């Protein structure tokens, strides 16, 4: 299928023979390790250094893995418009391979990913059902809160999004099998994404040992679940029950429980720490910026004043809440770098990135480029109001990536966040338990998480 005429020259097979200059290399690397230690300590600072010292294209060295970072709207557009057959996702994230396990690819082939959108749970038609499922799960979590108390934001939203994602994407019966142990196991898996994996993802380090133990525990938990489900009478056959019943030509099971566990992890992973972290940061930002939480609460109160339930229709137009979430995503993108392996030479503006290297864009850098987002460090939801609409810059406002490499779950995630906050803010008042500036991310792992403690107090609202 032919695409629209691109605004800039897009690299393609026909021109790949044409050699260009190599990308300038970032200085200051150590022997062998290159910039890996900076990546593990201050990754966002490292990416800004590439932009400031090399320009819109510059090369880092992560213990021998060469990563070419593209910044600025034009260079990022070249990345986002490139076909997945040229810029491949699977090979770019070696730290994920031991998490998913053998026989489970990162996210399927490009064609499989497109298929998933065509006939699966992320299409618009399914969103109406998902909205109701998320509302039910949010209310169940609120039932456990009682009248007043304190929560750890990371724990609370991790648990909630584990239930919402599994109920929407896998099955409602399967969701009932999950308990809070699962989100703790997931947390260990997420913490196991140390960038030292670019040296070797199986080094005998505590961080990788814990990761492997967490994965083994997950296989154990799920083995139990599937055995129980295989024996039971009645009930619905959900995704994993079907997968486990498939037999090959010799009558042996096509998928092992280890592989199905890997599928479970890969289905849940993309939507878990991302949505959970964004929910926590949204609450923090709304609470620490004067007037914001009041504005959103008044909006939510007005929408649900007639007593209607949280639903797809109700979630469509909640501009202040939506702007608050978007602004949170801009300032705290859950993925600070998006990477792809170059399968055939990639050209941009006279430069060539040869096959075999990685190319990357950084949402953390792009979302704060002052030429696109004036006063970039300020939390300012009015950026998205009519007239300004700074997210119109689809190649610069990139918490979900863009173009051919955009997150397929973006619409689901936005809907989910709006549903969660509609219910939470209708029923509870929140306040930060810690000094506002003490909330920060832990950047020591490739999967970014809030640093604990990150606590907030809550009190049930007195309503008529």
């Amino acid at each position, binding site marked *: 299928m032919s*695409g629209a005429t*691109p605004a800039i020259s897009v690299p393609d097979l026909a021109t790949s023979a044409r050699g260009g200059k190599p990308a300038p290399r970032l200085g200051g690397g150590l022997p062998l390790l290159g910039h890996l230690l900076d990546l593990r300590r201050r990754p966002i600072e490292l990416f800004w250094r590439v932009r400031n010292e090399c320009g819109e294209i510059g090369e880092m060295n992560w213990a021998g893995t060469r990563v070419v970072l593209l910044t600025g709207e034009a260079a990022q557009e070249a990345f986002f418009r490139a076909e997945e057959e040229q810029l491949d996702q699977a090979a770019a994230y070696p730290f994920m391979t031991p998490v998913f396990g053998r026989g489970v690819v990162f996210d399927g082939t490009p064609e499989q990913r497109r298929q998933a*959108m*065509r006939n699966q749970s992320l299409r*618009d*038609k399914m969103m109406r059902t998902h909205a109701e499922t998320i509302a039910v799960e949010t209310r169940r979590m609120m039932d456990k809160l009682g009248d007043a108390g304190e929560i750890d934001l990371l724990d609370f939203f991790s648990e909630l999004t584990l239930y919402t994602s599994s109920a929407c994407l896998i099955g409602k019966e399967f969701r009932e099998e999950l308990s809070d142990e699962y989100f703790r196991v997931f947390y260990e898996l997420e913490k196991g994404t140390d960038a030292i994996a670019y040296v070797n993802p199986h080094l005998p380090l505590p961080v990788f040992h814990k990761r492997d133990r967490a994965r083994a525990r997950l296989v154990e938990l799920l083995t139990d679940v599937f055995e129980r489900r295989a024996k039971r009478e009645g009930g619905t056959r959900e995704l994993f029950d079907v997968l486990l019943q498939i037999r090959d030509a010799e009558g042996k099971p096509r998928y092992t429980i280890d592989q199905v566990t890997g599928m479970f992890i890969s289905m849940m992973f993309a939507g878990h720490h991302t949505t959970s972290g964004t929910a926590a940061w949204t609450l923090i930002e709304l609470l620490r910026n004067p007037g914001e939480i009041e504005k959103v609460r008044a909006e939510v109160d007005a929408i649900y004043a007639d007593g209607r339930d949280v639903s797809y229709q109700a979630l469509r137009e909640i501009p202040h809440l939506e702007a608050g979430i978007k602004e949170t995503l801009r300032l705290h993108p859950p993925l600070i770098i998006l990477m792809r392996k170059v399968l055939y030479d990639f050209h941009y503006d006279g430069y060539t990135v040869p096959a075999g290297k990685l190319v990357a864009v950084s949402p953390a850098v792009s979302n704060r480029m002052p030429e696109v987002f004036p006063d970039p460090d300020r939390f300012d939801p009015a950026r998205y109001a009519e007239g300004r609409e700074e997210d119109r810059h*689809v190649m610069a406002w990139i918490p979900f990536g*863009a173009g051919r490499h955009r997150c397929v779950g973006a619409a689901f995630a936005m809907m989910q966040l709006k549903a969660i906050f509609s219910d939470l803010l209708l029923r509870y008042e929140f306040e930060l338990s810690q000094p506002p500036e003490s909330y920060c991310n832990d950047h020591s792992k490739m999967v970014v998480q809030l640093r604990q403690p990150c606590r907030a107090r809550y009190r049930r609202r007195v309503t008529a």
Partner: protein
Amino acid sequence: MRISVDLDLCQGHGVCCSEAPELFAMDGDKVRVLDADPTPDHHAAARMAAKYCPTRAIHLQEEK
């Protein structure tokens, strides 16, 4: 009004097909514009489709 779609951006969510079924249809994993030059009674629906497109792939050129 002229409707155009940037197919590099379209991910096939199908929101436009729900908002304006007379103007958009799914064609495999991408959208197809059924009527790029809609009559005025369809302009409101076209604007909703462009507004709610999750990837902002739909561009409307409004006549002044």
